[in-house]
């Protein structure tokens, strides 16, 4: 990075808020996904004004900027593609206001998701979207990716819980979208910004809804001897008119993997388990739990267990919430997929994944938000083996193709980012994409913010027919081994 730009960045944010040495920049070349690229500089903003000044500078000098929270994303949204500035919002981590009577909180983007709930629980409220990374991921990142989580089946994803945003545009202009009110007047730009993956503006303040803690929660674990029975139960539960707060599925391989790690009490000989949670008024929940239990047994569940107390409930969830990490115990690397299918297609899709697994000789574990058909197949591989790495990408692509074939989508909640951009043309027509590009250009005309992410450039997408870009580990200039 040009030294005069580094000097100016330091002038804006302070000397200890800019990283420019290769051995520091290497630490910002990854997120929780598979792609790696080293940025040209990292700057830590501490307030909106600094973000605005940084954006103005970047626009003037035509340097791309990639906003970053905790770096727990899985689609490369926080990875700088070119000699870009990574704009870290991790130090903007204050909860600015908790407005209990209006059920709102105002936070800076670097606030960790779970910490907001921890701060509001004493008032009887919490922040509902609960991605599995909630103890580390930031709300700013959640806004960018429109994150979901197990409990978004009944309550909705991030976009349903954000009512207002303060956004810095690429030219440094600061705009306010929405506010504390439920409905915004004019175009719903708040909704439009949520999920834009940092390609439209930098979010510097977020107004979110707080949700009242449920009076009662029932957590059930249904155990199956076949995956089909579990999948059929998902359809049957929704048809019965009950919408669980969460409806999660783990296949047998995942169950054994989780058990080896946390001993959540899942039976290791199961072919699949469903984790079902119901919440609301006590009487209603108890009735629903009974009804759901019956549906499970009708669909040939071999057993349905009810968590007796909060401790048992937490233990059952621990298994689900640590599922991804548990895979790390048995495999040096894994590639997390995020596809969506209509829930009626779950059995067919799982059979297809099984076929793909055999074809490439790679283990694929399945854990997913069954209620909304959001699959997370985890492809295990060893990153030291180029053939396996290549095959994991091929397998991923086939799984995505399968989701599209069944009328689904290429991402449920992890975002398109760098990883899935090449698949956008398979999902959208050129006209669809052109409208997206026009919208993006209205805010980010010169592609200063998060360039070459999410929406492929039109001339670019015509070229995409080949394999997805490969993860690369590049030698670092300026560092002597």
């Amino acid at each position, binding site marked *: 990075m040009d030294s005069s730009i580094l000097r100016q960045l330091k002038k804006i944010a302070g000397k200890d808020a800019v*990283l420019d*040495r290769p*051995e*520091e920049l*290497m*630490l*910002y070349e*990854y*997120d*929780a996904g598979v792609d790696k690229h080293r940025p040209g500089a990292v700057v*830590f903003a501490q307030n909106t004004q600094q973000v605005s000044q940084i954006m103005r500078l970047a626009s003037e000098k035509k340097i791309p900027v990639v906003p970053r929270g*905790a*770096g*727990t994303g899985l689609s490369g949204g926080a990875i700088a593609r070119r000699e870009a500035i990574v704009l*870290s919002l*991790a*130090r903007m*981590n204050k909860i600015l206001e908790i407005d209990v009577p209006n059920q709102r909180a105002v936070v800076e983007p*670097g606030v*960790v998701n*779970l*910490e907001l709930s921890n701060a509001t629980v004493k008032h009887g409220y919490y922040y509902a979207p609960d991605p599995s*990374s909630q*103890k*580390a*991921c930031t709300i700013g990142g959640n806004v960018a990716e429109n994150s979901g989580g197990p409990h978004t089946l009944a309550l909705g994803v991030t976009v349903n819980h954000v009512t207002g945003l303060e956004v810095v545009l690429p030219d440094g202009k600061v705009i306010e979208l929405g506010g504390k009110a439920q409905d915004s007047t004019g175009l719903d730009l708040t909704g439009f910004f949520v999920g834009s993956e940092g390609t439209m503006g930098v979010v510097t303040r977020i107004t979110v809804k707080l949700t009242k803690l449920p009076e009662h929660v029932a957590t059930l674990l249904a155990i199956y001897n076949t995956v089909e029975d579990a999948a059929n139960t998902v359809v049957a539960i929704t048809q019965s008119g009950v919408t669980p707060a969460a409806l999660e599925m783990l296949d047998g391989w995942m169950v054994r993997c989780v058990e080896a*790690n*946390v001993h959540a009490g899942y039976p290791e000989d199961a072919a699949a388990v469903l984790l079902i949670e119901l919440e609301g008024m006590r009487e209603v929940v108890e009735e629903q739990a009974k009804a759901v239990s019956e549906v499970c047994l009708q669909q040939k569940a071999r057993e349905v267990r009810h968590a007796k107390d909060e401790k048992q409930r937490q233990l059952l969830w621990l298994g689900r*919430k*640590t*599922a*991804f*990490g*548990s*895979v*790390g*115990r048995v495999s*040096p*690397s*894994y590639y997390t997929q995020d596809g969506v299918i209509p829930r009626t297609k779950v059995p067919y899709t799982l059979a297809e994944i099984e076929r793909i697994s055999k074809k490439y000789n790679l283990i694929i574990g399945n854990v997913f938000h069954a209620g909304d058909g959001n699959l997370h197949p985890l492809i295990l591989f060893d990153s030291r083996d180029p053939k396996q790495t290549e095959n994991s990408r091929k397998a991923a692509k086939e799984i995505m193709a399968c989701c599209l074939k069944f009328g689904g989508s290429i991402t449920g909640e992890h975002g398109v980012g760098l990883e899935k951009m090449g698949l956008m043309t398979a999902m959208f027509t050129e006209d669809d994409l052109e409208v997206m590009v026009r919208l993006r250009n209205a805010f980010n005309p010169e592609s200063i913010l998060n360039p070459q992410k999410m929406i492929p450039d039109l001339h670019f997408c015509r070229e995409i027919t080949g394999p997805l870009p490969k993860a690369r580990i590049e*030698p*670092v200039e300026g*560092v*002597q*081994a």
Partner: protein
Amino acid sequence: MSETTAPEPHVHDSLKPVVAVHDRPSWELLSTCVHCGLCLNHCPTYKLLGNEMDSPRGRIYQMLQVNEGRMPLGDTFVTHIDRCLGCVACEIACPSGVKYGRIVERARAQIEQGYKRPFIQRTLRNFFYNRVIPNFDTLRFVAGTMRFYQRSGLQTLVRKSGLLKLMGVADLDRLSPQIDREFFFGEIGKVFPAVGEKRGTVAFVAGCINNVAFSHLNRATLNVLTQNGIEVHIPQGQGCCGALHAHAGLRDEARELARHNINIFLGGSYDAFVTNAAGCGSNMKEYDDLLENDPAYLSRAKEFTAKMKDVTEYLAGIGLRTPKRKIGQKVAYQDPCHLANAQRIRTQPRELLTAIGCELVELPHSDQCCGSAGVYNVAQNELSMKILEKKMEDVTSVSYDMLATANVGCMIQLRAGMEQHGLKTPVKHVIELLDEAYASS
């Protein structure tokens, strides 16, 4: 790599490794990290500095880069590895079971073996690790000198003079332990009979610094154990456990001390080996990891670790006898990292406090590090003080009569925090409270 001969164990005047082992975190250990980042918000230095380099995930990534030759084993790497407290809160947060504590100790050994620290640092480290703590004669001498400084009125004079502030070492002075009038060395080698019906026999690990600065705590431990029907032996010849060496990357020295203690403690017939220091306990429970490449010692190391117990763990295990009197006070408990995170001992100290009639008050974030971390509060004083400041926000957010913890390092740090805030709230070891409950009136 593997050691084939069993060296004759003995404590040296100056520790020199008998067999050189080249330590570094292996790819197998490092690759369990899938860089998901769930550890970040549990790491005190990441929370404070907000840098990926000072997070567990970032540190592991740097180790991988160093091993692969993409990053030099140089100043930057050493800075970020040095800044790690070793509190292993990240291990609790990690879904993949990354053994971060073991990893960082190996990385520190790799630094010791492949990086030359500045002269003054090197000399001080050598003096402290190789001369003072492993050799009880030198320790006695150094402690005696410090005792003179503290008790002759010299310390008061120096403190009043403002000289310490001028030299920028006022915090360090506050963090130095108060040296005892009477050392504990004289008790080593003795046997203390059980009071009443005998329920067990244990060997007590007297520690190193404890002998000169916490001998009253050691005596309290003896009293509580014997009052609970335990015969306590303090095996002659025992030495420093090597925890500080292992944490500082001096693994060969730590191995030497481990072999020595294994020989001493396995030489008698005991139900358990008991310590009142969380850091020592967690290290001694990992003797088998330390000696994994020493076939002559590995099985004995495993035998040793199976018997190693923290005193709170041991007492809660056997169950307390009815105390002579109840401590009717409100007590908050701060979890020592090396007890709660490294040994996963959380409920036992609380059970003991409740059993002697304390009204337990839960501190917010009681499982977050206070910044003491062995010698961290001296070696990384500035960061340590910032971490302590955060801890004090939690410590002062609830009301209670007394703050209890279960490790001397944490006690010193928390007392310094109380002093800085002008608070008179006593900070005590759980065992000291138990001792009061079992004291003959």
